[in-house]
């Protein structure tokens, strides 16, 4: 199962296996049959580590979502709450626990990824701490999402750091990186850009000192670590991703490798299947076709799909050519594979159609056009009629905020009058409750007034962020992922190895936050390295591996761009991507919003 994790340059199934063991050991500590009560935000991630069949083998009989009310009755011996360390969740646990039938069950709490003093205090304050036979911590720091992607799945990381000055997630990120180093060796070269990134490097250095030499167990498999702070490039996630996977995320949302689609386009394979349920599809590199098209510009996906369709029907036709029994047998043995391919083709064709419906709409096109204009710096200092119309038509607030933030970034801040105008328009149209959100955006710097430096134009020119004549079908530059805009973050990663950051010092100085380079000493006997027989495909001179860690989130398009870089001819490095959370413009801005639900006013 899930062998795709081991198909990348760095075998991530090792990481998963270590987390799996840890989890099973925790489960086994609770002797007897168990019911797990899940914090909803954890089911997805932990499912990627250990699925239900595996848990069943460890006497897990029941699984329930963590919610208010009475837990279903059952005759399990243990009830285990698996939860993030969030204060509000403790209230739910209390509610569950106090409503339990008074039969003898052992209660346990597992905190993921860390136990927290505040939550334990809260449990004590609620008077239920003593009821638990054990309070454990399951340090699931970073989850292997795919063969080259790791995510901590903490959506509030950027908000906590930049809005609330709460650096917990940096600590957790450093811990996650220590976990990675424990399994894959100490990473010799570290580069970072941005203040939070700088802090993570500090913490890593500190943690390594604390280990006192206990980390020198494995030869290093990863050569470089690049930590990028989202604040260095807040623009990229605001833009609409135009890769296949990126668009799926933009339109339908991908969560823990799953996306849900309206079912109509999919031929229900089982007739009994209720057609009103959304169709849930798993998206990862174990699906060959998806692996081939995920990183492509959407405009290039159609060709691949039709080519694939022809290929499959040709394969089916082979059965006519099969004359002898032997040939027939060979054909039959290939059949399951062909059928799987066909099913996959069917799904992706349906998804592509759904996406096309969306991208063909006037709204989608108009918004792309407007974005392109902002990016090229045209008329960014005036109120944009397009944005005004969007507001007037009460289009989704997140869309409007996204556009305004893009304009603001490209204009290096608004004149105070324009900023006030936009704010007023939003408040008048969407309501006063969004004022705090606007203040939040100002506080993190996504909305701001003009400073003296006009850096965007400089950065855009010297890093060649805008490319003319993009070849969407056979790209030669990363800018294809946004049809003409090369993501700043990935450009930085690209230039790090060729020609090196020393050549772009000026640009780096313009971008926010510290730039840093560190070298971690590795004992002589561990230095050389990787068994040569590990991969058949490796060419003579081995590519180095760089781990790019995006603090504050990364988009699928950025991941695609990095994959593209490592597949280019004589690419100097292969990339492994890690992040605090997989994001897109919507989810990212959403994490910065403060939503208030007004209580109904009492008429008396």
């Amino acid at each position, binding site marked *: 199962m899930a062998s795709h994790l081991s198909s990348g340059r760095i075998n991530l199934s090792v990481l998963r296996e270590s987390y799996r063991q840890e989890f099973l050991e925790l489960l086994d500590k609770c002797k007897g049959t168990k019911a797990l009560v899940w914090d909803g935000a954890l089911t997805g991630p932990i499912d990627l580590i250990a699925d239900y069949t595996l848990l069943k083998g460890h006497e897990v009989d029941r699984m329930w979502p963590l919610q208010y009310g009475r837990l279903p009755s059952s005759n399990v011996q243990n009830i285990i709450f698996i939860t993030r360390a969030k204060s509000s969740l403790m209230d739910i646990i209390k509610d569950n626990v106090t409503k339990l039938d008074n039969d003898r069950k052992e209660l346990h709490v597992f905190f993921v990824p860390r136990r927290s003093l505040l939550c334990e205090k809260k449990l004590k304050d609620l008077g239920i701490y003593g009821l638990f036979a054990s309070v454990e911590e399951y340090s699931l720091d970073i989850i292997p999402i795919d063969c080259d992607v790791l995510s901590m799945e903490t959506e509030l990381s950027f908000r906590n750091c930049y809005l609330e000055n709460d650096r917990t997630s940096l600590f957790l990120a450093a811990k996650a990186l220590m976990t990675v180093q424990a399994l894959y060796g100490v990473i010799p070269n570290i580069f970072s850009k941005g203040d939070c990134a700088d802090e993570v490097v500090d913490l890593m250095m500190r943690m390594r000192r*604390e280990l006192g030499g206990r980390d020198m167990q494995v030869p290093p498999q990863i050569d470089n670590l690049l930590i990028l702070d989202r604040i260095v490039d807040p623009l990229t996630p605001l833009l609409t991703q135009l890769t296949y996977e990126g668009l799926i995320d933009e339109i339908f949302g991908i969560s823990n490798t799953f996306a849900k689609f309206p079912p109509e386009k999919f031929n229900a394979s089982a007739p009994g299947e209720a057609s009103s349920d959304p169709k849930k599809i798993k998206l990862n590199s174990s699906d060959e076709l998806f692996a081939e098209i995920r990183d492509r510009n959407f405009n290039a996906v159609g060709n691949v799909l039709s080519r694939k369709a022809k290929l499959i029907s040709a394969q089916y036709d082979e059965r006519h050519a099969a004359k002898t029994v032997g040939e027939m047998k060979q054909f039959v043995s290939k059949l399951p594979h062909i059928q799987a391919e066909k099913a996959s083709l069917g799904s992706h064709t349906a998804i592509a159609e759904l996406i096309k419906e969306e991208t063909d709409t006037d709204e989608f096109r108009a918004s792309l056009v407007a974005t392109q204009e902002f990016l090229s710096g045209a008329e960014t200092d005036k109120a944009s*009629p397009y944005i*005004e119309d969007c507001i*007037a038509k009460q289009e989704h607030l997140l869309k409007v905020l996204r556009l305004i933030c893009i304009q603001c970034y490209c204009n290096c801040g608004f004149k105070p009058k324009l900023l006030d105008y936009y*704010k007023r328009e939003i408040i008048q149209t*969407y*309501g*006063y409750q969004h004022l705090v959100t606007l203040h939040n955006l100002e506080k993190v710097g996504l909305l701001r007034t003009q400073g003296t430096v006009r850096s965007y134009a400089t950065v855009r020119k010297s890093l060649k962020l805008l490319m003319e004549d993009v070849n969407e079908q056979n790209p030669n530059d990363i800018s294809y992922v946004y049809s003409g805009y090369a993501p700043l973050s990935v450009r930085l990663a690209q230039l790090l190895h060729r020609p090196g950051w020393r050549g772009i010092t000026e640009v780096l100085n313009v971008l926010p936050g510290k730039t840093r380079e560190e070298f971690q000493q590795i004992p002589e006997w561990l230095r050389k390295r990787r068994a040569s027989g590990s991969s058949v495909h490796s060419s003579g001179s081995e590519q180095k591996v760089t781990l790019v860690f995006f603090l504050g989130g990364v988009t699928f398009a950025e991941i695609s761009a990095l994959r593209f870089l490592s597949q280019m001819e004589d690419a100097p490095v292969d990339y492994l991507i890690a992040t605090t959370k997989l994001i897109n413009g919507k989810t990212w801005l959403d994490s910065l919003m403060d939503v208030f639900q007004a209580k109904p006013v009492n008429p008396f």
Partner: protein
Amino acid sequence: MALTADWNPLGDVFFRKFDLCSMQWSDQVDLQKSIVAAAPFGGPIALIRDEARGQKISGVASKPLIQIFTSAGKELAVIRWNSGTILKLGWSNKLDLLCVQEDGSVLIYNIFGVYKRTITLGQEARDVRVIQCHIFNTSSGTTGAAVLTSSYRIFMVTNIDEPRIRRLAEVPGAEIPPSCWSVVSLQQSTHVLLAKEAKLYLLDHELHCEEQEVPINSPVDSYIEMAVSFNNKYLALFCSSGILWIGSSSLKEIYCEFDTKCQKRPQQLAWCSTVAVVGCWEDILLMIGPKKDWIKYTYDSAVHLVPEIDGMRIIGNSSHEFLQRVPACVEEIYKIGSMSEGAMLFEASKEFQRGSQKADEYIRMIRDKLSHAMNQCISAAGHEFDPVNQKALLRAASFGKCFLEDQKSDFFVRMCQELRVLNAVRNKNVGILLTYQQLQHLQVPVLIDRLLLQKLYWLAIHICQYLKMPDIEGASRVLAHWACDKVQQSGIEEEQLARAIAEKLGDTPGVSYSEIANKAIECGKVDLAIRLLGCELKAAEQVPLLLKMGRNQLALTKAIESGDTDLVYTVLLNLQERMPRGEFLMSIRTVPVACSLYLQFCREHNRPMLLELYYQEDNFQEEGNTRIADSYEDERFETRVSKLVATQDAFNKAKNECATKLTEEQIRLMRFQRKMEEETNKPFLDLSLHETMYKLIVENNQKGVEQLRKDFKVPDRRFWWMKILALSETGDWNELDRFSKSKKSPIGYEPFVEVCVKNRNFEEAQKYMGRVTPENLVRCYVKLGKLEQAAESALQSKNAEDLNFVLSKCPPSNRALFEKIQTMRNQLGAK
């Protein structure tokens, strides 16, 4: 002396019994009159005068003494016993001395007789008294104790470090005392075998009691003694008739029944490894093998038997012997007439040293098995206690190596190293009489632990360095223990201590300074502790101790440096509890990270405090934001408004004009909405201005709309959109038409077309086509579905891009049109 002189055959195998050392306790001890407890693996020995066996010195109520010796009989400590009557002494696997009293309490001492703690085996044991006790090691590596009370019930703890008392099942026939019993620990379960006369019962941990069928042929009156082997797999039962039954502890296998012809209960019955059972009657030792073979040894004074994993130690008043089956490799080499490779090599080596050419002959004989011969000699060396023999065998191995080209020397080197270590710890000043096999079982780190327990730091650290152990497991650990011990010593200046420790430990990786500091705190040496903590790298260890010592500010700084939020909260909550509020707030004020975290905490747990903090810090912007959030929590209109007034005030102080204005507008809007609700009896509150106006348009309340438009200065552009959308929603096409003519539209007329099309009113849409600007005309035609007109209009304005757009919208089914547009495109391209 022939090397086989101390060998005795037991059936077809040989046993040997040899002196480990002479006992230094010589005159101090009489085993005859003592209760003895010796720890396995050559561990220490504890003794106490046995009241039952020895004669009481009449008239003098002397307090008994517990003496602790090393295996070599060197005194380590003396405990003057003040407590109750001791029933049994024993050692835990961590070498703590366990003293079990009649009242069921177990007093625990360290190897130097320092009291550590007491555990008890329950109220019932205390009430009715304990009459017998067993101390045992479980298969999971813990040490447990089981007691038999005078009411013939058994209570047991399987781990003295985490005592959980279990009462075992009752045995039928409560009035008859058990004749003998023992604890058997296999895999996960620990159970008790108990004999009542001729019946044997198994008491498991789940409160079952089951009678066992013993496969024995001889008639049995009563089992009066039993012994379980070191690995718990084998069992020996001694019957009152003198029959000794030997079998597996599961009672499934039987090895033999042996008639000892002695009906007296042996003083001790024990296993020698797993290969023989030894019984001890006064001065006679009888060893019985599984095939009824036997050997008898006689002594002139009492001895004590200590079963070991690979044999048995026999402690006497003056000597300390080891009894074991001769290891195979040793037998191969030394056995008279042995022709094994090892024996040949050994001979060759001896001849070589004598300068005899026979050496060559011997080597030739085993030429192609030389490697095996070497290994035999090396292994045999390991089993020898006398360095002379060790050397001779190793020399033989090394001689053999000369004839081999690519022989790996790992085994040889390792054996030399381990023997050197073994010889060092067997020294009479150290007195750990460990065999090679026992060391393999224990592993070196455990041996180091034992040396640390005996405070033999110098030897320990030299062994670590000699074996090149990583610092973390080796030298650092030893140093840390040394330092902990050091800080507990009194009479040395703290300053001097700190310097001494820092000098020795320096930057040695992996030393836990906090552990040492904690010891210092326990001894009340606070200054020393603080000095030591300064060297601690792990904040998670350092911070709690700093707090414990009241170094709040330092604790806070260190917690923040670690980046560990939880640690910072530990400090914050701790300070909050211990300090007056004002002082607390002042102390975190200058630390931004602490402030932010405390604010975060207040945001969830203490809203009033949050406002107060912002107010205090003149952070009016955040105060405003917080007040907004709070206002939405309120259910009463007037309080909500008054909260917003306070918000407005805060934003004003923050000099945030825009927010001030917007808040003021919101209050005005709410008042208006309230009024509308009263007038129309429809909900308006919590709608935005835009939504309010939209609703009013839909409800055709012109006056209200106009008032709001003026009061709130709604821009024309948005107002037009609003009105167009609202009117189309109600389907009031006439009003829409009138509106379109009221003045020139600031957003053009395309939106009019758009809304009509959206409501599928194409006829109405047509009306506005005339007023659509030429550049938008094509798209409007497309929206209306009039592709042909769209194409023509594109052609007219010579706009190729538009034409392509029309083409893309043209369904392939409409061939004629499709071709027509393509012609048009060519036309344009030509021009």
